């Protein structure tokens, strides 16, 4: 297997000769760095990486990668990436997309790629705004957000990416923050190793049109108390002083303080990303500040059939006993007659 082979890549080997043109301070730069780092750890030769994107700021990503890449059309990256992977399952296929690209114009393709469980690594840059078109609200913008197309505030309920992924029968969902390159790198590696559609939501900052949108949660001073990094098999502890945790209170999650009311680490929920029943993962994915910390890390990672594998297997099963082996056989099959 390719995984056993090592390649001595450095992140710079994945940098293309193109000048990166995102705005200074844009969260995309950090995502690019983390991805380039992650690729060095996968044991996959460079020529097997393919980056597919749609349209939006983040979709410029493939140009900055020294790999095979295809910058396509708005919303369709999931479909194009699916085609690449099905045509050649040997490739490591990455889809770069945003909240508008994946959840508005491309919503249909996104949910179906997730449902089919095509082995794609989908990095969804969520900045809750349309950046490339200069500041209109997106399907993840919070209700009431004032933008150019919602001068009096939006009256729409936003999508929650994790909820949508689980609703679409998704098997892998993780969340990270653009600036946290270490966590992001780990997550990209895990996503790449997961067989099936892996969706990674990146809480990404748009410095121009929605600056500091995630700051209340991800700000340097507050992030430890307002986010929780989930690790499979570990109790759910968070807080600057590691003094807070999550317990199950009836059918709901509840934040508790360790040491108070006799609560100890043993009372906390242990994260099980591999559990196929998405009940708790669903609640974790939907936690919102201030009631809860926002969950980061791999929230759900469940093995399952992958589409491209099943297609390939079906073909080889049929071919084993097939009487028709080539086009000439097909042409002569069934009812034919000779004219002498």
């Amino acid at each position: 297997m390719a995984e056993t082979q090592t390649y001595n890549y450095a992140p710079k080997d994945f940098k293309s000769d193109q000048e990166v043109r995102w705005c200074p301070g844009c969260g995309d730069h950090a995502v690019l760095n983390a991805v380039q780092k992650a690729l060095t750890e996968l044991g996959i030769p460079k020529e097997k990486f393919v980056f597919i994107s749609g349209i939006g700021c983040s979709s410029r990503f493939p140009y900055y990668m020294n790999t095979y890449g295809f910058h396509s059309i708005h919303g369709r990256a999931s479909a194009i990436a699916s085609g690449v992977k099905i045509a050649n399952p040997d490739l490591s296929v990455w889809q770069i997309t945003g909240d508008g690209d994946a959840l508005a114009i491309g919503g249909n393709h996104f949910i179906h790629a997730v449902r089919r469980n095509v082995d794609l690594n989908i990095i969804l840059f969520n900045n809750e705004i349309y950046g490339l078109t200069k500041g209109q609200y997106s399907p993840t913008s919070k209700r009431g957000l004032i933008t150019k197309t919602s001068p009096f505030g939006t009256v729409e309920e936003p999508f929650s990416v994790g909820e949508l992924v689980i609703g679409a029968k998704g098997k892998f969902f993780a969340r990270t923050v653009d600036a946290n390159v270490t966590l992001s790198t780990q997550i990209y590696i895990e996503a790449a190793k997961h067989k099936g559609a892996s969706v990674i939501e990146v809480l990404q900052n748009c410095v121009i049109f929605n600056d500091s949108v995630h700051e209340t949660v991800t700000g340097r001073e507050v992030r430890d108390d307002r986010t929780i990094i989930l690790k499979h098999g570990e109790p759910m502890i968070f807080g600057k002083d590691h003094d807070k945790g999550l317990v199950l209170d009836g059918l709901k999650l509840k934040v508790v303080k360790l040491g108070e009311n006799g609560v100890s680490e043993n009372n906390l929920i242990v994260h099980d990303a591999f559990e196929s029943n998405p009940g708790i993962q669903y609640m974790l994915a939907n936690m919102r500040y201030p009631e809860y910390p926002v969950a980061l890390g791999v929230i759900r990672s469940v093995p399952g059939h992958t589409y491209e594998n099943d297609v390939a297997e079906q073909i080889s099963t049929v071919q084993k006993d097939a009487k028709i082996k080539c086009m000439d056989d097909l042409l002569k099959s069934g009812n034919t007659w000779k004219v002498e």
Partner: protein
Amino acid sequence: MIKNSQAIKREEVVIRFSGDSGDGMQLTGTLFSDTAALYGNDLSTFPDYPAEIRAPQGTVGGVSGFQVHLGHSEINTPGDYADVLVAMNPAAVKANILWVKPGGTIIFDKDNFTEKNLEKAGYKSDPVKEEKLETYNVIAAPISSMVKEALKDFGFEPKSVLRTKNMFALGMVYWLFNRKLKYTEQYFEKKFQNKPEMIEANKVALRAGYYYAETIEALNPVFIIEPAEIAKGTYRNICGNVATAWGFIAAAEKAGLKLYIGSYPITPASGILEELAARKDLGVKTFQAEDEIAGICTALGASFAGNLAITSTSGPGLALKSEAIGLAVMAELPIVIVNVQRGGPSTGLPTKTEQADLMQALYGRNGECPVVVIAASTPSDCFHYAFEASRIALEHMTPVLLLTDGYLANGTEPWKIPEMSELPEIKPPNADKKEIPFLPYKRNCETLVRSWAIPGTPGLEHRIGGLEKTLKGTVSYVPENHEMMVRLRAEKVAKVADSIPDLEVHGEASGDLLIVGWGGTRGYLMTAVRELQTDGFKVSFAHFNYINPLPKNTEEIFKKFKQIVVAELNMGQFADYLRMNFPEFKYEQINKIQGLPFTIKEIKDKCIKMLEGN
């Protein structure tokens, strides 16, 4: 078996089977055509389905028909008017009587002519009087009661017994055309392998019909249609959609590539996806997408990954695919888009035929966005043009739009099976593995075609996309670069003209009138022209399969005729296209927009009028 004195020889004959959608008329028609084909007749068929899956029983809206045209000479169309109509109920008479030749034979199930059924069909009185059926040779056979009698010992439910009515009717038609029952009986044996009683019951019904026809004198004389003089070889019956699917498989084999189709079901194109989905034995990957857009986009992904990539659709679906076709033009990736045209606009007439998507195929995209457009013209040549579309797409790194239509898709005809060794190799412009760094938009100086570097190939990593690029693949907004790239892409498509055959003229190379057609109308136009020529008119015929680019000798041919008339099933889209390309000629038009093919008579009448007005 029959006495010659009772038989008359005919060059050709048209039979239309019709009944309720549940009466099995498509199967009956297919079995009849198979028998005719195995006997050696040339033939052409056309099924006519109702648009509704199960329209109310007994109504005109629920009538399903299957027309077979068979002959001793070359048959190019399913025929205009029927010599024999088989009608299983009053609605079938009502729906088809206009299409029966004066004095033709009408066989109907008189048991079904109940008051209730007559009312459902919209008859106020006896249809024999209402439709003046006495001028026809009417055989009112008690088909339902006869099968009940014939199958009484089988112990079947009355409903199952009545399901064999169509076989009784088929038996009658076999007698009428002096055909053997053998092939149809073999079909029963194969179809009902594990149900011996079903084999027997169907055989009994078929034979009962045959003997009944023999017994009643009304079916004399019997028609004799000698086998056709056709080229030696092995033949099979094939419909347009299957031929299209097979053309793609053949092309993939000749190119040494895997075949991928991404499509969304749509009438009348679904048959292509269905046939390819069944071809796992040949390694075909089929993807039933969530929508039309995903159909083409996954195909484009597969093309990027190095497969022969196809998407199939019909008019409204093509509209949805426009943006992705633009991307394929920009990325210069090979892909074939099949549009099985139907009546439009919008949902239009989904089960009927039309040629009104030509302009959409040529121009229905944003920007300067040329694609190769080719059109098939008979059910069986869909194979050839699907192969050609693939060849051009792969060798010229361009999207190719292949136009067929509902009539070709479902129509069948005998087809001389080719040997794969007779077909040309397809050679995609694979990138040289040593050409590092790979420049995605560097072109072959002669053909202007770029090279194809497949992901997975070490050293050829590159990026493509929908933004305008330089030769190197770098995004560029430089005005001169954009103009240069637009012109290069257009010229690349124009240069495909160097690798397509010349336009042929059927008939004299010069004369009074050149009839011009394209796509699926070929059979009708060809037959009309031959008949006009026999009548002494100086008429020739040129039929286009290559629409963009046009064959290089088009102008030369047009020059030699006094008049040019363009016949097409739309308001004149090809005529307008020719006006734009060759404005020096004057073009008359014959147009029809009824969801139906031309009839030979209407073509002839209009041409004669034109010639006489000259």
